[in-house]
């Protein structure tokens, strides 16, 4: 029969942990692995963000998103245009900005944002 006192002693003995000669090196190796995983994860997230941005921008260009939006809002544009024409005859509002130029500006804006994210990440890593 094992008595309670011995069980308590056993628990105390198990709780005692000898120090190892390479304790410091062992802890450093875990720190290094944690840092390595963290850096890798951040780069993966950053790369995924940039990839997503590039894909989004290219999809925007390929699908001619602005044209579709224009087609959908054609009715309201005509109303607006008519209103402005009444105010300033001879000037068409939508004629001021070409849709191709607008798409290029949106894509350029997204690219600038993506580059900004990349630069921020690089500076953080440095």
């Amino acid at each position, binding site marked *: 029969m094992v008595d309670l006192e011995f069980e308590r002693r*056993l628990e105390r*003995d*198990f709780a005692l*942990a000898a120090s190892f000669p390479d*304790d410091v090196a*062992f802890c450093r*190796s*875990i720190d290094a692995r944690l*840092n390595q995983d963290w850096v890798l994860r951040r780069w993966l997230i950053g790369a995924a963000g940039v990839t997503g941005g590039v894909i989004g921008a290219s999809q925007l260009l390929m699908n001619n998103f602005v044209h579709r939006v224009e087609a959908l809002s054609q009715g309201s544009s005509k109303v607006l245009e008519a209103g402005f024409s009444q105010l300033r005859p001879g000037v068409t509002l939508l004629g001021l900005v070409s849709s191709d130029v607008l798409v290029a500006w949106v894509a350029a804006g997204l690219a600038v944002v993506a580059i900004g994210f990349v630069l921020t990440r690089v500076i953080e890593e440095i």
Partner: protein
Amino acid sequence: MSGLQSLASHHDVDLANLAAAGDRRAFGELVRRHAAGVRSLLRRMGAAPSEADDVAQDTFLTAFESVSEFRGEGAFAGWVKKIAARLYIRRIRREKRLALLAAESAADEAPIKLTDAVTRMALDEALIQLPPGERMAVTLCYGAGMSHSEAADVLNLPLGTVKSHVKRGLEKLKVRMTTPETNAPSGRLAHG
């Protein structure tokens, strides 16, 4: 440096909360506090030193990933030791070494009498002499703080088998570790 000093004065639960918020320095302090305990436990479970260190590393990486699940209801040491025990058992199961533990301890083993214990043996020396199943069961229950049913679940053994492993293991340990006339320190872990 002052940052490290201030972390050293924190309670484990506070450090775990900081780590859950992404503070890796706080988690580093937890590693410094509990690494030796985890490594000792794994060696006591029967892992070779290099294997114990591999599993201990995986343990702390796993603990960092799931530190937000630590609610501070028990000791951090117990929580991380249970992770270590589960990882080690998963590893030996994968390597098909777990079957050894299911075997009943050798029936033909000569019973140990109190008079056989010439000197009081340290825990680690006594553990080494136990059959693998008894050693594992005793270490899970008294070292990793698992209940019998938790140990049975982890080991995938019937509860009765685990209970008998623990009972027999404790009896042998008691005989080997108890000699009234000596006062040698116990619980020392031989590391090589």
